């Protein structure tokens, strides 16, 4: 093989109290897709940030094309030909889609930015990844998944030697992933070195040529994809075997639901979702399936009162519930974990402990604090149960790795013991082990009588955990599937039934 384009040698990165990376070696060759694998908190994102000059390593060196580099910031890395999509979509929501794609390299005429050319160029780049949104719309008006695609569009817009993708597919559907992979392959064949991070093993095996596995900030090893089977990979990542998935397949009580807990009658909101009927029973897991922009998040937000409905009503236990806002929902025993963990979930500057008890505390009111002892017990219990790392209650939530943040959010709602738990993409960016754990947890909660509304971009997962799947298309409920024989193929068929479900509907 040729010389590596990126050669990281013995790099170590430390944060106060955390050794995030220790003597990590990593090589990236031109014309290959190299997957960086590891559990949540293994240090993948940190390695990427060390490479692109966001974090300064305490030891080790980075060679780019054979030359030693020490970037002072992402700008320099970009100039040197490293184009990056960071894990927490780093875009400016106040700007338009076009601007976000071309910021810093806008087409100019006579020194002035040429707005028309910029929109045209952006539209072209968006089309290239199969996303048809209006380049003039502000990014804030789009859901996380679209933002993720915009970030990808931005990254592939430049002629880079190295393309770094940190969990670019965490909220994407199969179609978008396919589109992305098509582009990645083209780039790879042109000789670009691609660093790819994902917790979806299928995707990794589909696209990657080689893999490096990290565990607890250290390199476990480097393999070609062909060398390492899935089970060995998982074992390398976790340092142990994984067995929960099989158990889940045989959930004994699947489909054994109780009384209706929540009934939505003709609930709807203009421009968000058409009026729909929905019944969720105790002990039942209802999955929402649909394409990007089909209205799943919208539906969930209406049930929680995060947005106000224009039409219809919600009954809980047969009693009409006035959903004036999240608080009313919480009082009725409904909890909602948002898909946008950075914007709508985590309170980044507060500690893990505070984040964990926030919802519980909010429900009790300020005058009745959660006793310190109880808080500590809860924190200890859930940190252990969800394996949140570092298991330090005083760490700042914003400093956790992406997957651990997601687990923390889930824990926040679990401590409130809701009757209906609405989970919007709860497994986004979560590693294989933890994902299985969460799925199992959902099954257990349902067995205990909790109702769960489960949204995920990963169809298999929805089908696996749900008793019943509600299919959305074009911001409208189109079907409900239930039964023991519920299969992925049935759902896919429904989702893609008419051409009306094409992604372009997202941009209307």
């Amino acid at each position, binding site marked *: 093989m040729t010389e590596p384009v990126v050669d990281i040698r013995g790099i170590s*990165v*430390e*944060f*106060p109290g955390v050794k995030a990376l220790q003597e990590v070696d990593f090589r990236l060759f031109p014309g290959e897709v190299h997957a960086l694998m590891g559990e949540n908190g293994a240090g993948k994102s940190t390695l990427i940030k060390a490479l692109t000059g*966001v*974090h*300064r390593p*305490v030891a080790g060196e980075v060679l780019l094309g054979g030359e030693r580099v020490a970037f002072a*910031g992402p700008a320099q890395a970009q100039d040197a030909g490293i184009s990056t999509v960071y894990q927490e979509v780093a875009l400016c929501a106040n700007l338009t889609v076009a601007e976000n794609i071309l910021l810093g390299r806008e087409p100019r005429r006579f020194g002035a930015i040429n707005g028309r050319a910029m929109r045209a160029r952006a539209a072209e780049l968006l089309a290239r990844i199969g996303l048809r949104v209006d380049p003039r719309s502000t990014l804030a008006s789009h859901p996380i998944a679209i933002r993720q695609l915009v970030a990808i569009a931005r990254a592939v817009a430049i002629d880079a030697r190295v393309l770094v993708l940190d969990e670019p597919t965490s909220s994407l559907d199969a179609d978008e992933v396919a589109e992305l992979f098509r582009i990645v392959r083209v780039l790879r064949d042109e000789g670009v070195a691609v660093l790819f991070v994902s917790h979806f093993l299928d995707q990794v095996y589909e696209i990657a040529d080689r893999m490096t596995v990290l565990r607890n900030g250290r390199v476990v090893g480097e393999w070609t994809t062909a060398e390492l089977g899935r089970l060995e990979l998982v074992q390398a990542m976790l340092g142990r075997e994984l067995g929960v998935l099989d158990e889940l397949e045989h959930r004994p009580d699947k489909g054994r639901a109780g009384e209706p807990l929540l009934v939505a009658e003709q609930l709807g909101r203009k421009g968000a979702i058409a009026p729909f009927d929905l019944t969720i029973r105790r002990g039942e897991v209802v999955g929402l399936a649909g394409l990007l922009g089909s209205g799943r998040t919208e539906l969930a937000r209406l049930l*929680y009162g*995060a947005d106000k409905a224009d039409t219809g009503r919600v009954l809980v236990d047969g009693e009409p519930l006035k959903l004036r*806002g*999240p*608080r009313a929902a*919480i009082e009725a025993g409904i909890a*909602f974990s*948002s898909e946008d963990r950075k*914007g*709508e*979930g*985590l*309170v*980044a*500057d*507060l500690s893990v402990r*505070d984040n964990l008890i*926030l*919802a519980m*505390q*909010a*429900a*009790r*009111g*300020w*005058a*009745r*604090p*959660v006793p310190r002892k109880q808080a500590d017990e809860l924190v200890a219990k859930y940190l252990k149960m969800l394996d949140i790392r570092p298991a330090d209650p005083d760490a700042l939530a914003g400093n956790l790795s992406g997957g651990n943040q997601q687990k923390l959010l889930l824990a*926040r709602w679990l401590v409130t013991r809701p009757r209906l738990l609405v989970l919007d993409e709860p497994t986004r960016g979560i590693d294989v082990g933890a994902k299985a754990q969460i799925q199992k947890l959902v099954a257990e909660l349902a067995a205990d009588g909790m109702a769960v509304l489960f949204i995920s971009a990963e169809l298999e997962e929805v089908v696996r955990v749900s008793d019943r799947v509600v299919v959305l298309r074009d911001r409208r409920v189109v079907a409900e599937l239930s039964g023991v024989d519920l299969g992925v193929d049935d759902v896919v068929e429904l989702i893609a039934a008419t051409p009306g479900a094409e992604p372009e509907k997202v941009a209307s």
Partner: protein
Amino acid sequence: MSRRLLWPVLALVALLLVNVFVTPSFLSLRMQDGHLFGSLVDILRNGAPTLLIALGMTLVIATRGIDLSVGAVAAIAGAVTCTHIAAGGDPFSGMAIALALCALMGLWNGFLVSVVGVQPIIATLVLMTAGRGIAMLITEGQIITVDNPAYRQIGAGFLVLPIAILISVAALVGVALVTRRTALGLLIESVGVNPEASRLAGVRSRTIIWTVYVFVALCSGVAGLMISSNVSAADANNAGLWIEMDAILAVVIGGTSLAGGRYSLTGTLLGALIIQTLTTTVYTIGVPPEVTLVFKAVVVLAVCLLQAPALSRALAPRRKVVLP
């Protein structure tokens, strides 16, 4: 004490040392008529109103807000009480009326911010302007002088130490206890760091925002009483003029970010003391009035530079550099 507060403490000590150097008797205290007498006591007493307002301001800033109307509210409190006393009223009922009025002002600010959704700086600018007019309306533009021994106590009285500083410190301790023993502090910070996430977590942000604006208005009211009682007169035009800047500065020197979130009450205490010590220093060491402002600028800049994370990193024994 956290590392972050180390530099403000050092700055305060440095300022005091400068004074001692120029006036060796600066730190000396003596008992006189049953109370302590000395420059340090003056600093505490004169700093008490700023400290009190800064205390309320800390909570407002923690919710991502700001309150520019504190000076005007302080002026109103003094004006109402003095007018009441001058008209033959009893000082206590006068103060009660004044504080009730201040609470109303706080409710108003809170209403504009949390219900109407006006940006705090503009919402409170309304009352900053109109409030001073109201204070002058009450006093008809005159300085209302009162001679009431009971009223004098709150601003100029002593229980060994100045009553004003006892009130402010009691308020500080009270707030520290209430916010840390209850969940108020947590909820305030959470609203300040991420309002949307807090809303979705079920935090009553509206009530919380309302509470802090009422609280800062009450603080300003009491501070206004101190200011006017200290000179036994209500000066609607000048009482509390620019005190909002001092209060905000105290909060910021104390390490609380104007972007909301984490706050430090100890920091605010230090900030308020630094500001007052600086003012007293100017008088004591005889800085000519023409260069007073330049002197203040240099000190303020020095304090915040020393505190700056970038600089303390550079000064600290070599540690790794972490960019946020």
